[in-house]
């Protein structure tokens, strides 16, 4: 169910039952934390509403963590699977492009792989991060965003990598796009109510411990304790501290966005319905206005 706000931003509310059963969601992230922090609530909501969900992580996250490159790769790999499971994803694809040189790699290689996966899964909806405006934008996020945009278009063209068709894959039209955006992004046009999926969002962020965010609460509690202080919201154990740290300090933007729109928590997106192209919309509006009975 959607409703309009006064500035033409649509609020996408929770749907009851599983009206999206049979549909496929492909969520593409550059790094392990992209989906958990920016769009895991929406992912969990759609999956809870019936979508079959698949997570595709592009980089190997070698630069993200306090360990060696190899420890980071291994740790983030394990945690990606756990984080995805917390949100209800059916399967995870790890593409393992090196974080340190993904911007030097040919985009075409990543595009061909995404096209293959979108066709194989028959993805109806693709979700990814639009990096502009975010503080932690990186070459991996830019590359991933650009590749996803191209792959979405090319997956529907039967002349692109026509050899895929011999493997039983069909050219496939991806109809819906969710680009997770910053609050100030001009293209923001959809607010998704994630109130029913907040605990799942926290669960998914909690798994991201190699690069630290999942254990910040416990670290803070110990640091304060060493200074003779405590924060009541962090509770009396590491698990509570980590969860509540995430709720208070990572999800604060989601909370503010939600409350401004009469919700508890919300995530923000640029949403594209590719079935309703500019021309199709004009046509529909014109027909509605001008068609007469024969």
């Amino acid at each position, binding site marked *: 169910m959607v409703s309009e706000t006064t500035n033409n931003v649509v609020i996408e509310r929770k749907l009851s039952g599983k009206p999206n059963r049979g549909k496929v969601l492909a969520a593409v992230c550059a790094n392990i934390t992209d989906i958990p922090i920016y769009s895991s609530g929406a992912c969990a909501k759609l999956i809870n509403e019936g979508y079959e969900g698949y997570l595709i992580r592009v980089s190997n996250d070698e630069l993200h963590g306090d360990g060696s490159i190899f420890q980071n790769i291994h740790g983030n790999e394990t945690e990606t699977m756990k984080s995805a499971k917390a949100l209800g994803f059916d399967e995870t694809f790890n593409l393992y492009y090196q974080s340190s040189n993904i911007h030097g790699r040919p985009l075409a*290689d990543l595009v061909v792989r995404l096209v293959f996966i979108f066709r194989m899964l028959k993805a109806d909806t693709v979700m990814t991060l639009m990096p502009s405006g975010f503080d932690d934008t990186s070459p991996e996020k830019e590359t991933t965003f650009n590749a996803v945009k191209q792959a979405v278009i090319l997956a529907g063209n039967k002349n692109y990598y026509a050899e895929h068709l011999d*493997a039983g894959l069909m050219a496939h039209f991806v109809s819906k796009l969710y680009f997770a955006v910053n609050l100030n992004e001009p293209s923001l046009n959809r607010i998704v109510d994630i109130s029913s999926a907040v605990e799942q969002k926290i669960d998914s962020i909690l798994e991201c411990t190699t690069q630290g965010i999942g254990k910040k609460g416990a670290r803070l509690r110990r640091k304060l304790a060493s200074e003779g202080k405590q924060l009541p919201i962090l509770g009396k154990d590491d698990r509570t501290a980590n969860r509540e740290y995430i709720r208070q300090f990572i999800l604060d933007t989601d909370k503010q966005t939600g409350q401004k729109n009469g919700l508890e928590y919300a995530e923000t997106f640029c949403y594209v319905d590719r079935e309703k192209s500019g021309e199709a919309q004009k046509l529909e509006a014109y027909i509605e206005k001008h068609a007469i009975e024969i």
Partner: protein
Amino acid sequence: MKRQKSVRETMVGSASVDNTAGTSAPLDDASFELRRNFHENVVVERDVPGQPHKGKVLVLVMAHADDHSGTGTAAKLIQEGYTGYLVRVANEDKSLVGHSVGEAVELIAEDTDNLGKAIGCKKTYHLGYSKHDMEDISIQELRARFIFLFRLLKVDTVITFDPWSHYEENPDHYWTARAIEAARWHSGMSKDYPEHFRAGIKPHGPKERYYFSRGPNLNHYNFTQFNRVVDIGSVIEKKINADIANKHWGLGSSRDPEDIRKRYMGGGRRRDIARRFGLEHAEFFNYMNGS
């Protein structure tokens, strides 16, 4: 006197061969080419009766529609039981002067389909890259496509350009060849493009390679040492028909079928070299087998 003789011997020394009388004499052109271009243990591959290769798969990869160096061998192996596929990498947008780009690409694509049929290929794949611009394309992307094809078709044998042929001037040739060489190596491994396995396609790496290059041709200083000569006498008509199938664009200055036939059945350097091996018609390769 003694010094002048020594200098003359030195001048011809690199091209000379000891004859039975034990004196040095300069090689004739064909002998020189044999010595320079063929490995001392060259194997002559002759026709094999029956269809001993039934169940095996070959891919003949041409960068362009006129890269016919392996069509005879492909026809021979298909005759001996292989299922064959043709892959053409370029779209020939720069070919066929006098026609628009659109006319050229469509006409040559149709011709290439017929070329594949002429040698017995089951299907032709067109990868569609802009001709002469291949150095600008991502070799990784090209490699990825060949990895997919080698796995999908379960290719045992690849016939294509030698990736390390000297003085190969056409970037499309060496770019194609290097992408294929890398793809052949990786396609049998289980961590390269693992999403293929999710679609039911298994790792599979071709083991056998027939690599051709420009030459043997004294006008083209190609120092590839061929180690395999394939007798294509029994399939020469198929090879000729494959060339004729290129109605609009191909080898030589004339596309008239009779001129094409004369080019193959007449004399010339290739026939001279073939006859040195006791054959009427032959193709020449750097052949490798195994991982």
